[in-house]
């Protein structure tokens, strides 16, 4: 089903690294995310409605993939439960099949600290790292839109973590960028919560939301507000957009205690909440440039921690987005040592 769409790379679309082609193995890294700031249906450049989302990246978690080539066997070996990783590797191998020294098949090793099934994008992280590892083996750094295209082919729907140099409204079912909203998100701190610890959402089984007319009209309004929030670095407005999007999602994949989380966030001067539209995580957003931001964040986290076990949620961590948090340095992409699988 996918074979016809795997085009060979045009030479000018790839960045060859001189002298590295033909190395023994290939490595690739991809970060995780923390759900979405906005998800819905939006008009593309031609005015056609498309499902799309804006991802909240999560520095500090990610996947490192290592590709070990085989020149004799055309299959790909990998973690048995990870069909998508093997599929991504196959697609990437087909993509590079005309390259000099191309591998026929191989083996993929995944090392990741991204929890699965809670909406942190473990699957896209694995798939993207794999594609990058195969590319790396062939001495190539693929542009983000090519990685996105391959990831969507492997996964059917993928988030936009491979596009790491700008904020995009991303058509997650076709891998295209509907709009570049800006260079980066406003500096924010996020309290990461799992609203249903132990529960797992199977993204592949999730039915696409059938939004009603009011929700569809609302998406255009949310997009306009987010455009301003990103362009001007307005974390408060961004929090409003994320909260509205999280509320729309309540009809499709509700988060226990969303209102309670929102109240706690606002009480401590936060901007709003965001959720994984296919997962159980929720994030409380704080403007990192606001006075006492870090203190407020920690006070809010402490208060939630106190309640967490009673109401059945878990605080999974504190995240700095476009901002670093004392005691939480942004992880070095190549030092993902925590193995959770």
């Amino acid at each position: 089903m996918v074979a016809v769409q795997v085009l060979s790379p045009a030479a000018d679309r790839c960045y060859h690294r001189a002298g590295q082609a033909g190395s023994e193995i290939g490595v690739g890294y991809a970060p995780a995310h923390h759900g979405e700031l906005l998800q819905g249906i939006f008009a593309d450049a031609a005015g056609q409605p498309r499902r799309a989302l804006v991802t909240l990246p999560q520095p500090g978690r990610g996947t490192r993939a290592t590709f070990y080539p085989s020149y004799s066997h055309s299959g790909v070996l990998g973690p048995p439960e990870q069909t998508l990783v093997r599929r991504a590797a196959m697609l990437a191998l087909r993509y590079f099949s005309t390259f000099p020294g191309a591998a026929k098949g191989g083996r993929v090793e995944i090392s990741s600290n991204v929890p699965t099934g809670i909406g942190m994008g473990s699957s896209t992280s694995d798939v993207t790292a794999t594609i990058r590892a195969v590319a790396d083996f062939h001495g190539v750094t693929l542009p983000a839109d090519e990685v996105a295209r391959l990831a969507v082919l492997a996964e059917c729907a993928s988030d936009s973590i491979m596009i790491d140099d700008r904020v995009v409204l991303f058509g997650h079912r076709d891998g295209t960028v509907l709009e570049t909203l800006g260079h980066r998100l406003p500096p924010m701190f996020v309290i990461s919560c799992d609203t249903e610890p132990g529960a797992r959402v199977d993204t592949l089984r999730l039915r696409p939301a059938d939004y009603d007319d009011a929700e569809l009209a609302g998406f255009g309004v949310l997009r306009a507000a987010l455009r301003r929030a990103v362009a001007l670095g307005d974390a408060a407005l961004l929090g409003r957009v994320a909260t509205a999007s999280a509320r729309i999602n309540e009809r499709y994949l509700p988060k226990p205690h969303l209102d309670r989380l929102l109240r706690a966030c606002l009480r401590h001067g936060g901007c709003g909440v965001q959720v994984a539209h296919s997962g159980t995580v929720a994030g409380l957003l704080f403007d990192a440039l606001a006075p006492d931001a870090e203190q407020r964040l920690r006070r809010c986290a402490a208060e939630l921690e106190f309640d967490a076990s009673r109401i059945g949620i878990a605080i999974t961590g504190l995240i700095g987005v476009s901002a670093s948090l004392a005691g939480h340095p942004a992880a070095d992409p190549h030092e993902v040592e925590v193995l959770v699988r």
Partner: protein
Amino acid sequence: MSIQTAFEEATETYQVPRLIRLAPNLYGACFTLMKMIPARFILRRAEAQGLLPPHTVIVETTSGTFGLALAMQGVHMNRRVVLVSDPVIDERLYRRLTDLGAVVDRVPAAAGAVPGGYQAARLRRLAEVRTEHESTFCPEQYSNPDNPRSYATVAELFLECLGQIDCVVGPVGSGGSMCGTVGNLRTVLPECRAIGVDTHGSVLFGHADGHRELRGLGMSLMPANLDHRVFDQVHWCSASAAYAATRQLHRRHALFMGPSGGAAYLAARWSAAANPNALTVVMLPDEGYRYQDTVYDDNWLRGAGHLDQPLASEPVRVSDPTRPSGSWTCFDWGRRSYAEVMAGVAGVAGAAGAAGAREAR
């Protein structure tokens, strides 16, 4: 990257209001012809849905700017337009409508004397017109949900240009513009306030139906598109007060707008000054050209008695929205339904106006 592009058709240029700063926390949304937004949206959507085959006649009851917008869009879409209007229709507007190819069908003057006035007579005539043509399409601005829906783009513009808006003020006729704009804004900003501006003798917010000089806002019949629960506060503004405010808008800000916008500006200026931290936007639905011989003519204003009283600096707060008193009044509607508000004043002596309005509904 984006580049500037040309417009496909004239009516497209009417889609985007100009946002202009009037005070530190007050912006005017200046429309050339606000009604183009619902007119264009409704007709284009109808065409896309196959409801407007080539020989269909577009029919509507209107004496005002909605008819002009339909006639203009009718030119682009190559459709005939029949407009049922009051016997008294502005002669210049009439000439412009007919030049656009529209047929203007006026109800007889005698119709004004019966309950419901011209508006009821126009609806009866509209029903007749529809039987005279094989295929007709009526946009039904008073009840078509596409009217409020069309204002989503206005809400988008407000959010992109101004961000967190605290209050929107605008005149109310069908209710489409205020309910649609504020309803959409509240997707992102649920606490954004809405102030509706009406005029004495309009049934919209509780007055008994009566003679109204001020055009563009107020109604004799209750429109289904008016969702009362959108409004935090309602103002009633007399023609004299609206005209004076319209002229001030022109003199102070060089904004040449119509009197429904003037009435809204009066309420908005007061509200923005009273709430200096509230970012406020006022809807100014049309331009001043149609009113040059009236609102913009001092001799006419003096002759009609509009200069007899100075413009009040603040509204009189009323506790009973059914009682028309004073040239500028306001009432805290509190996002309640019409029935809820009227239940609250039912016990108040002299709620005759409310009874009249309920009948009108």
